[in-house]
């Protein structure tokens, strides 16, 4: 028997979750190494007021290093500034300019957190990598199974759909069976520096409102877009916008339409014709979606339409739907009952029980009627 300790690199953001995750791994007997990704230029970030630095502030890296010394483990920093800009920030900005609402955290997870760190695992002789996400991975004989965290109010499996199977096979998620409350209590009990730290913002690199940020960084593109019409479901002009990239599907505020027919919601963004489409709340309803850039996270694709539970946004509890394999790696999802705010660019994640079956980026929302197949064999373990 090889009595050498297994070495695991735990991604540490400087927050309370990954701090406790590191502690748990160490206590479980792993040779644990804290890994913090440097994604942004600290000098640039330091010129902003402290409250606007987001994850870019060096204090988070320093917190991670501090916690590592508190619990007595090594720490390294990986410099991924260029890759973060290229793989996360630029695509994020460009998506808005194409009328799409992007999902940078998913890209960051797969390209940065797992992608880059996996490349490093061999160089640093890591046996596993780990993160402080609230989700579980079951390592059995077959494919690794990515499952929801036991604390359903904190479950983060949705954000991990894009992590490739080969990466999941080398991943440990020590917080999967913990509640947030217990993690905070554990951090406090161990007197970890990060015990009281606030939750991080959703999009870490955008300090102000994102549309101002886009305008600042893409002056030519945004001034070319200029103003455009806001139209209703019948195609009638009901207002004007000063850049469609400032709107998201389902948005109600800031439309400035005063025809007395409201309230209006954004139901679509048409970048090609530079128009924002609005309607009443029922007009937001969609019967399905097409997902592209699909990853089959825990199970292979079905050969015929099968039932699943679908999540189309982060804090979505999930609704029953059908997953239908399509061409060119695309997948069609049909909801059992129509859903509102199906937003292109966001992630659609389909589950089998509490396991992430697969996911993709929403390419378009579908409006047409659809009938489920008459003869259906319910796959084992799927709730009807």
């Amino acid at each position, binding site marked *: 028997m090889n009595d050498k300790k297994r070495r695991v690199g735990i991604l540490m953001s400087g927050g309370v979750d990954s701090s406790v995750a590191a502690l748990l791994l160490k206590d479980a007997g792993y040779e644990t190494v804290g890994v913090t990704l440097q994604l942004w230029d600290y000098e640039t970030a330091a010129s902003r007021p402290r409250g606007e630095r987001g994850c870019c502030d060096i204090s988070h890296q320093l917190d991670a290093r501090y916690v590592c*010394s508190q619990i007595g*483990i090594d720490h390294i920093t990986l410099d991924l500034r260029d890759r973060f800009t290229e793989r996360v920030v630029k695509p994020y900005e460009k998506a808005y300019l194409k009328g799409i609402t992007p999902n940078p955290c998913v890209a960051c997870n797969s390209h940065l957190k797992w992608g880059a760190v996996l490349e490093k695992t061999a160089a640093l*002789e890591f046996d596993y990598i780990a993160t402080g996400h609230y989700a579980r991975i079951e390592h059995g004989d077959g494919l690794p199974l990515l499952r929801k965290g036991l604390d359903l109010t904190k479950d983060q499996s949705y954000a991990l759909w894009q992590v490739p199977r080969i990466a999941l096979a080398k991943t440990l998620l020590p917080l999967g069976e913990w509640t947030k409350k217990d993690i905070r209590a554990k951090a406090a009990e161990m007197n970890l520096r990060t015990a009281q730290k606030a939750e991080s913002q959703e999009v870490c690199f955008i300090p102000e409102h994102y549309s101002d940020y886009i305008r600042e960084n893409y002056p030519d593109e945004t001034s070319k877009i200029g103003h455009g019409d806001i139209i209703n479901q019948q195609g009638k002009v009901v207002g004007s916008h000063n850049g469609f990239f400032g709107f998201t599907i389902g948005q109600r505020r800031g439309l400035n339409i005063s025809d007395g027919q409201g309230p209006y919601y954004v139901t679509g963004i048409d970048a090609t014709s530079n128009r924002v489409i609005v309607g009443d709340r029922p007009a937001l309803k969609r019967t399905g979606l097409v997902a592209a850039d699909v990853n089959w996270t825990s199970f292979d694709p079905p050969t015929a339409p099968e039932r699943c539970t679908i999540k189309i946004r982060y804090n979505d509890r999930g609704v029953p739907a059908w997953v239908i394999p399509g061409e060119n790696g695309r997948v069609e999802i049909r909801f059992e009952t129509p859903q509102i705010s199906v937003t292109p660019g966001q992630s659609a994640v389909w589950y089998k029980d509490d396991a992430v079956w697969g996911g993709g980026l929403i390419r378009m929302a579908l409006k047409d009627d659809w009938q489920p197949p008459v003869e259906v064999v319910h796959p084992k373990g799927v709730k009807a």
Partner: protein
Amino acid sequence: MSDKPLIYLDHSATTPVDADVADVVKQTMLDAWGNPSSRYGKGNEAQLVLQTARELVASQLNCPPEDLFFTSGGTEADNLALFGAMQTARKKATGNHLIVSSIEHSAILRAAEALKDEGYRVDVLPVSSDGLVSPDTLAGMIDNETVLVSVMAVNNEVGTIQPIAELAKICHEHGVLFHTDAVQAYGKVKVDVEAMGLDLVSVSSHKIYGPKGVGALYVRDGLDIEPRTRGGGQEKGIRTGTENMPGIAGFGKAAELCARHFDEDAERIGALRDEMFELIKQGVEGKVRLNGHPEKRLYANLNLCFEGVEAESLLQALDLDGIAVSTGSACSSGSTKPSHVLLALGLSELEAHSSLRLTLGRTNDRDSISRAAERIAYHVNRLRAMAF
């Protein structure tokens, strides 16, 4: 951080404080805590400590103690020298031109950039592939507007020792001032302001087993440099503000110990460095290239290029073994930019990213050297095998 015994091979980044130095620092804080500017007994006691430290630090430069001014470190000394000399020249309308070498520390390069933004003319003196500046090239760059030339005595990354006496001579022939950043040289390589004819010299305490946050600038007697700060007039107004007494006293002690260990350090650490290089060459399968000059280099410095190996990964793998090394200067570590020094020597970006700096010091012995060499060879061989 973890419980592995540390093998420290980064003495050019900083050094552990000598126990005797720490004693002096503590004594100064607890006993000689007076303000050296105060005109009563407690102040006089502090003044004596300050004077003693100044003499000890000055003796390693062979300069009159009264021409040495304490600062917060090498960076401040460098900035004071460059801004001070250039601003005085502008005031007196005696010139506007500054020359710095391409392999200076960022304290010099960034200060020079800032001066350029203020309208001064700045030229960069190139180096040869082994890191040496050419006195002839310098002579050709000096013109009648040139005020100051700054070339470091020993380079922090590749350890190259520059012919500063020769460079100073050329400057003086043209009526130009010469500054040297001697932070890496001080206490290890002879720097003699009289014999070498230096006008301005920056030194630092924490590279010689002294405390951090203290350094000094030598300013030749009679040379007028514009201060960067205004206040109560301490350090003859050149660097005003109540002196960092514990740091200065510790710096003095560290300088005294340097004088005592000067020859012994050079011999013992130099032999360890040579042995380590041999061991690495024996252990590594394939090429190991030495960056910088093979002979004209600091006895403690090894800068090695392992083609096909990402030095950042090597550094991290060694860190997990408890071995501390560096891939460039500590100030730019974590940056994806390749070392400007290695690029100036003509290395490609890839070669620069494959280079490791090992700087030995008093904490090393034969055991730690051979263990480190063995781990370096192990990881280099492993990482090279992965790359192909």
